[in-house]
């Protein structure tokens, strides 16, 4: 049985410093939900509050309608996967997986069949009599996952489970985790600082900074319409430019440096007034033109050919450096020192208030804006 998780105004302090102050969010039943943010922002702290290993200083935590603040961690029916796997080194693979079932006083037969089922699901049944020190990192990870899932938990919690694996295995394991989660249909909270991993694996992501949720949304929401400047630069790569905006009816015109202008028709009505703004343009949102002399003038500093795409590093007349990604063409790569002109895909770019706190373009989906309710 899966549950939804509601967190209302969670507070966590260590001594005098408040790590999390009044955080709210709702995680839907069966959802793969990721907490994403730079190291030290409080992801682990929040996860461990859900698990019951961190004392909750304030706020309410619910699984469905049951308040769990006071429930013993052993009774929360949570499956947990730790960064260092936390495999019991003195128990065989099979006994590691069976450990949780034995605590639940099931019959011998049931323990046997359930353990076997999950050993097979995680493709580790051929190692079942091995001791953990004779397993590779990836295999240990599979044991940890099998051990967490076999107890049929209401919630699966994972704290940077892939960070100890090498790059190739990481990609493979995240695929496995995603598949298993789909198959079991369990509500999952996943912690990572790797935005690419988060994008690849999640239904929805909460981006955190300094214990505060910046944006909750699908990977597509976060990438295309980030709620604020932090999210736009934390998710994917982007170029930040300053501009003055003028408004004419429903049209907002951005005056970038060097006299180049972009007109937007998709600015939210409440922000339609003359103001300074910050423009975020992702590398693939530029269009390079070598012939016409319209657009932002730039000089190519270097380029990297990566097969499908070619990356150009250029600088503008103002001296600002900009990264551009183009689908590779069959023609020559534009040589260094060459002058080019840049246009932008106006419908894709994002514009933020001068302090970077709000995206003023229409289409921002942010579930954290309404108290975490999805």
């Amino acid at each position, binding site marked *: 049985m899966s549950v939804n998780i509601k967190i209302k105004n969670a507070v966590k302090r260590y001594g005098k410093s408040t790590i999390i102050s009044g955080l709210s969010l709702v995680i839907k039943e069966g959802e793969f939900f990721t907490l994403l943010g730079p190291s030290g922002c409080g992801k682990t702290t929040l996860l461990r509050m859900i698990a019951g290993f961190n004392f909750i200083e304030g706020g309410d935590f619910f699984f469905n309608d049951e308040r769990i603040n006071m429930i013993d961690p*052993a009774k929360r029916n949570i499956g947990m996967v730790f960064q260092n796997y936390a495999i019991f080194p003195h128990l065989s693979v099979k006994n590691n997986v069976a450990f949780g079932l034995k605590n639940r006083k099931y019959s011998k037969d049931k323990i046997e069949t359930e353990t076997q089922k999950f050993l097979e699901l995680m493709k580790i049944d051929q190692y079942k009599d091995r001791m953990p020190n004779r397993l590779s990192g990836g295999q240990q990870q599979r044991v940890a996952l099998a051990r967490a899932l076999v107890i049929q938990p209401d919630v699966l919690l994972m704290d940077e489970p892939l960070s100890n694996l090498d790059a190739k295995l990481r990609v493979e394991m995240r695929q496995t985790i995603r598949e298993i989660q789909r198959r079991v249909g369990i509500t999952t909270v996943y912690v990572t600082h790797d935005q690419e991993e988060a994008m690849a694996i999640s239904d929805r992501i909460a981006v955190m900074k300094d214990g505060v949720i910046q944006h909750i949304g699908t990977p597509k929401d976060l990438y295309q319409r980030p709620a604020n400047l932090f999210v736009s630069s934390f998710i994917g790569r982007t170029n930040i430019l300053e501009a003055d905006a003028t408004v004419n009816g429903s049209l907002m015109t951005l005056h970038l440096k060097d006299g180049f202008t972009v007109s937007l028709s998709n600015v939210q009505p409440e922000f339609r007034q003359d103001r300074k703004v910050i423009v975020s343009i992702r590398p693939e949102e530029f269009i390079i033109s070598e012939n016409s002399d319209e657009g932002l003038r730039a000089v190519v500093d270097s380029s990297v050919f990566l097969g499908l795409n070619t990356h150009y590093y250029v600088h503008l007349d103002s001296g600002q450096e900009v990264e551009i990604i183009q689908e590779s063409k069959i023609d020559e790569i534009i040589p260094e020192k060459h002058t080019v002109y840049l246009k932008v895909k106006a419908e894709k770019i994002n514009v933020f208030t001068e302090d970077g706190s709000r995206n003023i373009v229409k289409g921002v989906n942010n579930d954290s804006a309404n108290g975490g309710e999805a």
Partner: protein
Amino acid sequence: MARKKLFDAWAIVYLAIFAAYLLFLIYPMYTILQNSVIGENGTLSLEWFAKFFSQKYYSQTLIHSFSVTLCTTVLSLVIGVPLAYFYNLYEIKGRSLIQVLIILCSMSAPFIGAYAWIQLLGRSGIVTKFFQSRLGITIPNIYGFNGILLVLTLQLYPLVFLYVSGALKNIDNSLLEASDNLGCTGIRRFFKVIIPLCMPTILAAALLVFMRAFADFGTPLLIGEGYRVFPVEIYTQFLGETGTNYNFAAAISVIAIVITAFIFLVQKILSNRFAFTMNALNPIERKKAKGIKGFFMYFYTYVIIGLAFLPQVYIVYQSFQNTSGKLFRPGYSFDSYKTALKRMGDSIPNTFIIGGIALVAVVFLAILISYLVVRRSNVITQAIDTMSMLPYIIPGSVVGIALVMAFNKKPIILTGTIGIMVIALCIRRLPYTIRSSVATLQQIPLTTEEAAISLGASKMKTFFKITVPMMSNGIISGAILSWVTIITELSTAIILYNSKTVTLTLAVYTFVTRGNYGYAAALATVLTALTVISLLIFMKVSKSKEITF
């Protein structure tokens, strides 16, 4: 609330341990302090301290103890550090034999070494006689300062060796290569790179050697003769034939503790200056010992180890010699064993009963206390931690005297029981066992226990099914070492025993003091055999071969 429940289960445990420490350590220590300031006529007075410092007869024991201990410490370092260096940086044949012999030497009771050296170099020792009659050379007097220094150094440099070897194993080979690369090699590298890198360990070993040498009681008693030292003086005042004086013994004990505490603090301050941790990715590669340098290394290593091991060999040899009365006769037999076993009473069963109970208690308490200190840190568990470390600086005879003074009268009378001997052994051994358990526990990630809890195991179940098994390797090897130190313990037992609680070590000691050297040798050999067996088990269990004291 979840936190509340867990608090209660462990609270009972730590409150009980706290109370036990108050009763069996703090209260006896307080009794000593109290007794030391009660004068002849029963009033508060510092007359015993005045007596000690004003009469040269007493105060010189302080100077004696200090000089012999200091010399022992320096000499142990001078011998032990190069030995560890040769052993760990060069390929020396017979490595495992060297290792076993050194551990064995460090584990035997010092007074047995003293008595063996008297047999060899004493007034009528065989070496002395040989030199005198065949070569006409008179060997320097072994009694007094020289003898104590010889015996304690040969007994204690193995500790330095074992400590420093551990540190050398943590030095990364690249550090040595970098040093060579920068033109610092050979002796220069030894002093400029190796010694500084091992400094924290060298200081720790120095402290241990100092504490052991300062508190050792059996060696000076046997070989010291007129050279009177502290622990013997305490013993004499407490149990001496010339009339006992509890208050004076207490005062000397207090002075002894002040000195050891001072040394302890000095060492702490010094070692804080060298606080760094190392972890070798590539351990040092041992080179072949070649040429004249190689010859010197072999010579040094084997002579030094031979000297330390010689007493053991000689005692085994003696145990098979025929005796009549107190004299050795030509020919060999098992007669000494037969008679010794007949006359030793219950000392073998006593050794196993007292040692066994103490061992179980030490292991059990060390697990609980280390868990409380690492995972349930609060004011009381920190206090337990501090109290448990106190006996590290309290000489064994002082622990004995304190326990007698505290528990020889109502409301609690324990003197003459097995209980008081077990308590003394626990108190004295726990500082070492707790340290090593804490180190083991700190290496176990907390998340492993949390994993168990999230899988539905209760706190207690997690502790017994996950934490304890994960600690078990460290616990078992620590336990075996405890066992060896427990069965060879003398300085506390000598004060606490009575006719019903004689142990093997005490029996050896009694035979030695009565001059029954053949019987003493036989029992000492039994003791050595027990130690060897224990150590073999230890090496089988702990694959790491690391020894922590």
